């Protein structure tokens, strides 16, 4: 009983202190406009400006897939359409250009749809 009470206090403390800037809800909000434009069978590539070894890279990719389902998101840019998940104010055009990605539509909030000209 004491354990349960202790854990309950811990949880309540965490809940009242949490700011929730990152998580499913924020991804749902960021990608909601983009999702409405997708057909169910769409297959998208994915690019993020996170460092490759950043632990949040994998979780952000999974959150993108969760948000955009039933479209399939692949962890590669080797697709005709690529969704770019960026965290800066504007996407890095030089990086996009070097990867042959041409912006098609910026949905705001760090979500950009690009066409891969190499395919």
């Amino acid at each position, binding site marked *: *009983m*004491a*354990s*349960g*009470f*202790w*854990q*309950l206090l811990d*949880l*309540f403390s*965490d*809940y009242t202190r*949490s700011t*929730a800037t990152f*998580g*499913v*809800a924020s991804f749902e909000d960021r990608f909601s406009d983009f999702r409405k434009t997708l057909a*169910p*069978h769409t*297959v998208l590539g994915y690019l993020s400006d996170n460092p490759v070894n950043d632990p949040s890279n*994998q*979780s952000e*990719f*999974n*959150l993108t*897939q*969760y948000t955009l*389902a*039933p479209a*399939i*998101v*692949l*962890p590669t840019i080797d697709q005709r359409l690529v969704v770019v998940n960026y965290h800066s104010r504007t996407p890095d055009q030089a990086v996009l250009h070097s990867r042959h990605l041409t912006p098609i539509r910026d949905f705001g909030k760090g979500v950009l749809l690009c066409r891969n000209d190499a395919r």
Partner: protein
Amino acid sequence: MTFLCIALVWLIGFGVARFLFPAPLRGSLHSVFLFSLGIGLGIGIACCLYFICLALFGPNWLILAGFGTIIAVAAILRSMNATNRGVALEWASGPATPAYLTWFLVLAAAMAASMFVILCLEKPHGEWDAWSIWNLKARFLFRGGDSWKNLLSSQIPNSHPDYPLLLPSIVAMCWTLARGESISVPIAVAFLFTLGVCGLLVSSIGILRGKTQAFVAGIVVLAAASFVQLGAMQYADLPMSFHILATLALLCLQDRFPDDLRFSIAAGLTAGFAPWTKNEGWLFLGAVVLARLVAILRFEGRAGLGPQFLRFAAGALLPVAVVAFFKIHFAPPNDVLAQRPSDLIAHLAVFGRWIITLQGLAKVLFVIGGFLLPIVLILALYWFLVRFHVAERDRTPLATVLLALGLMLAGEFVAYVAFPPDIVTQLNVSLERLVMQLWPAGLLAFFLAANPPQLVTTRVYGAARPKLAGKSQKPKPRTTVPKPASSTMRLN
């Protein structure tokens, strides 16, 4: 509308449970048992129905709603017309239950409910596996329309396309019937399974060992923070835990009421839902069949074997057929099992993998439940105070539960050693959850074997005792309430 769908699903299960074990509709232990069992049965049956409709007719609301209504109405009508032909499930006799124990149970339930609510407010989509596997699959099923088979695509990284679909199906079914995607559905399903495990544990121990023992077990399971957290995380481990507990509890009740073979049918049904919940459900199905076989042959002889196993198989037939249909026609090969035999042999030959798995298991036993003190030590103290005493009639059920859990643990142990290339990460992310699947059934075994604690002492003084004519009365300073015949208790 969402909650109407959830209620409809539960009504199907309650109807089937009440048809199998009829009892008057009133606040009784029997009703608590049916209420809890109905959760797993209803969700399991509804999932099978949803998947069959989807596979045969595609995503058609009308067909799904039609079949759902027919099954719900049939289950409710059959349950209402069921005569009281079976056994009445009542509290087993035992020592008096003090009022404070009831209040402790209520307090533990209130704390667990508060914890669940806070966790759901904080993470309404659940934890990692919930949104990267289970709810993701539900979205593919619901949003995908005719492209729902995309969820089986091996292109989607980390989504494990071969995983069975009980949890995603029930969520997608409610969304389909409600014609809207609401995050309250997976939360409600998680809550129902958490509630179901508690209700099933308390009611089955109450029937088998009495109210005091049941309330203590209820407090232990509800006070385990990680148990409640596992529920709120919306993982498939808690539904798996429900099916394991339900199967083993029903088999225990089968031994308590050997003339009523409907317990074996229901046990077969819940055991069949285990592989529809998670792949390790196959291991459980094999383990429970083997454990039951050994227990019956060892303690009862061959006579009871045939009728029980026939009914168990009849119960398991529908869910196992649905899982087989899914695995054969739709699911890609399992990514873990697809490894080369030479790799598995190489893994098994590394002695360090055995050691690290053993260490991981030993550690989990001390941290399981998230208690301030290791629960194994608290249970050891409890055992020291009350001791075990297994009556002859409880030998078969206890052997069944212990053997099934032992085989499950052994199977999972070997699987850890043999399969994952990165064993340390795999142990860290999944071992505690796998042990938590067995935790409620482990408590069932513990409290089935333990003597009930005698927490109420009635003092009767010599002067107050009625005098018997012709017999000398030796006043005793005090006596206690007589113990049950089987008791070897030390706590007074």
